[in-house]
């Protein structure tokens, strides 16, 4: 404990030097902007900034880039809540209830709770990073393909709770997403699937163009097709902060989102997106009023927004403790260190205490700065809604296109986004939820890869999923989920879906 305090002191003395403080601030500021702009996600932002850090010292460079990463999680909620356009892929879930809140004139509280939830999650996760990084990272390594597959199988079952409305429509959307996810090179054999000779499709369909297309472009199209000129929402100043009841409703979702996000974040993979879906599903499952979800439940904003922040911090755990990049963003952060001749490995924290503790301290400062930065910004962002749509939407459309193009400098991605935009528009007109499609696209490659890797490991024996303890626990939990789902059939009690249908009939 004393040692940790001493280290933390060293960290703050590093992070509070004028230039490192400046880098943390710049990182958070750029991160917020990257998050706010639709399409441009943290990966694109960090990749574009990476070369500019070569001239800095390694600590400053890492502080700057990490700031962009967690700062983007703050900014991502803004356009999701105000315009139903996800600022980055991890904010797709926020669109659903955040936008519903905005329609009710509660955009201010939604933005505020997203910032507060992010702050709480970010700060608690840094504590986790500080005390638990080495043991957690070793635990994360035990997550091999079989564990990952079982976790995602459980995840898919939880998804039944994710969205309201018709179960059949939701399942159809998940399947559609999974089908999109099958496009591209088969990583186990090298065959191209459904690529129709387009080389760029060999990599499959990215999450960013799908999310921006299905939500952003579809929203713009739907607004344009609206015969009535939509009312510009003009919230009053006193409506900017959450009410006492909204605060009370958000405490537990923020707490659960933080823990869930941090744990899922540690696991190798693009976890920060999955963590938001999981958090939303969990909130809906435990809520006493699941029927409110989708119609502006603040829990549906607080949970996922906390989860993605905690996950971004969790993703740094294996990278810093073991030098293992578990996702594309940590890989770029690792490169930022390697270019300075620092090759993080299991001894990184011991050998480079200044960098590690400097980063930890900068994350405490950075999260606080982001809160200070984002709460006043709520008042400014709200004013975006005053801009007439004919001016606002073309600008957003431009940012969507630039953002999606920038991720891979690929026109094919812009094409995918456009097709998804039209598809999303049609799906909305026919009353289908589009969030499950995005999730399917995220999950399909991971589920397929982990299933086939597991079977390659066991030479085709399915027993590997039960032999490995972590995997067996997840499968056991899945069985419990199935049992819970079947229970109402046996005990003849109404499940929440039926109550939901009734509630919707009444309204």
């Amino acid at each position, binding site marked *: 404990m004393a040692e940790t305090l001493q280290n933390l002191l060293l960290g703050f003395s590093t992070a509070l030097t004028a230039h490192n403080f400046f880098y943390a601030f710049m990182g958070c500021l750029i991160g917020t902007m990257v998050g706010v702009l639709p399409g441009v996600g943290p990966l694109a932002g960090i990749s574009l900034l990476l070369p500019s850090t070569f001239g800095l010292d390694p600590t400053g460079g890492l502080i700057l880039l990490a700031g962009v990463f967690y700062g983007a999680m703050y900014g991502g909620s803004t356009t999701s809540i105000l315009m139903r356009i996800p600022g980055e892929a991890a904010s797709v879930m926020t669109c659903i209830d955040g936008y519903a809140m905005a329609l009710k004139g509660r955009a201010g509280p939604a933005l505020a709770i997203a910032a507060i939830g992010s702050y709480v999650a970010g700060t608690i996760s840094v504590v986790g990073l500080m005390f638990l990084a080495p043991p957690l990272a070793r635990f994360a390594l*035990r997550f091999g393909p079989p564990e990952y597959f079982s976790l995602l199988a459980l995840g898919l079952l939880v998804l039944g709770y994710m969205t309201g409305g018709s179960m059949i429509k939701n399942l159809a959307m998940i399947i559609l997403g999974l089908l999109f996810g099958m496009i591209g090179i088969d990583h*186990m054999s090298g065959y191209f699937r459904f690529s129709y000779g387009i080389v760029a499709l060999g990599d499959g369909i990215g999450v960013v163009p799908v999310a921006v297309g299905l939500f952003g472009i579809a929203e713009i199209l739907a607004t344009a097709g609206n015969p009535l000129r939509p009312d510009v929402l003009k919230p009053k100043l006193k409506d900017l902060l959450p009410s006492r009841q909204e605060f009370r409703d958000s405490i537990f979702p923020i707490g659960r989102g933080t823990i869930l996000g941090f744990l899922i974040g540690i696991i190798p993979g693009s976890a920060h997106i999955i963590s938001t879906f999981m958090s939303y599903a969990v909130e809906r499952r435990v809520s006493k009023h699941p029927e409110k979800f989708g119609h502006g439940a603040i829990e549906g904003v607080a949970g996922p927004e906390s989860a993605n922040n905690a996950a971004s911090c969790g993703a740094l755990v294996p990278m810093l403790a073991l030098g293992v990049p578990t996702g594309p963003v940590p890989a770029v952060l690792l*490169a930022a260190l390697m270019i300075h*001749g620092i090759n993080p490995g299991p001894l990184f924290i011991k050998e480079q205490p200044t960098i590690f503790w400097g980063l930890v301290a900068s994350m405490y400062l950075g999260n606080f700065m982001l809160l200070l930065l984002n709460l006043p910004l709520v008042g400014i962002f709200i004013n975006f809604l005053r801009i007439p749509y004919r001016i606002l939407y073309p600008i957003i459309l431009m940012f969507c296109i630039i953002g999606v193009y920038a991720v891979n400098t690929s026109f094919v991605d812009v094409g995918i986004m456009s097709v998804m935009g039209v598809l999303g528009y049609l799906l909305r007109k026919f009353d289908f939820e589009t969030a499950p499609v995005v999730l399917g696209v995220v999950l399909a490659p991971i589920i397929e890869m982990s299933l086939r890797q597991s079977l*390659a490991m066991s030479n085709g024996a399915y027993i590997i999923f039960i032999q490995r303890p972590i995997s067996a626990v997840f499968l056991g939990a899945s069985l419990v989920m199935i049992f819970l789902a079947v229970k109402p059939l046996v005990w003849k009690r109404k499940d929440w879906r039926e109550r939901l249908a009734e509630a919707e009939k009444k309204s």
Partner: protein
Amino acid sequence: MKTTRIHWVVIVLVCLGAMNFLLGKALAEEPYPTRPVQIIVPFPPGGVADLVARPFATALEKHLKQPVVVVNKTGAGGAVGMQSAAVAKPDGYTLMVALSSISVMPEVDALFGRPSTYKLKDFASIALLTADPTILAIKKEAPWKTLADFVADAKKRPNEIKYSSSGVYGTMHVAMEMFAHSAGIKLRHIPTGGGGPALTALLGGHVDCLSGGPNVSIPHIKAGTLRVLANWGDKRLPALPDVATMKELGYKDVEFYIWSGFFAPAATPAGLIKILREATAKAVQIPDFKAAMEKMETPIYYLDAPEFQKFWDSDAERLIKAVRNIGKAQ
């Protein structure tokens, strides 16, 4: 309306063509470079090629006296970026830093009977920048003390020892299969999504070994979590002087490098290639660049165009043979 537009396009094109013809001679003698030069890296930021290209671009700038910009054009394991460099205007302003996988992809395409996105002949070589042999890394607790132990065990238990790779027909896969073929053993291949995940799989004990670049494994070797049985190069590595090469251990035909080279589109005029070769020869001497590469455990291994071409030809021959031996995955 539409026809007039097409007319205009045709007229403009014809004018441009005529101008090109008239100016052709003058252009050839124009000084180069007069505007920023772009280096395409067909892999994402932070990858091996990117980490070589960026400090190299900075070093090159000093001699070309023009900004040298690195552009990551990723997709399909590098095929997208390599194709775009292959068809780029051969004016010396679009160049490429690519990895040894450049020789593998057309062969894999041929194997699957699909049209290749580029041919090796599409590129003119300028220089070899780095060449790291892969190393055979195993967990500290693994039972094998020497490569002979490993091979003996693999012969006893065919298809039981698992290795991870960055992906099918990727460098880590081809290197390991080249060795397995030479040693007459069969190992079980677990492809993952990249070098990082492959290393994670080994560290987590989900596979038994891998053949990967030394730079990412060295911290784990220093920390004692990984051990090394052999190296695929023709010389021992300065960073790992105790590790014998495959050749020393009796596998004469096993040689594999993850190398990075500097290329231009094939039709680039010889005069421009010469300028670029001279600038590269000077750039690799810059102490900052040298130090940066050494700190990354990816030391510079410079070969000028003629030697590089020879190196590339013999390397491509080995790789193509290895890919044919692997054949199509079941």
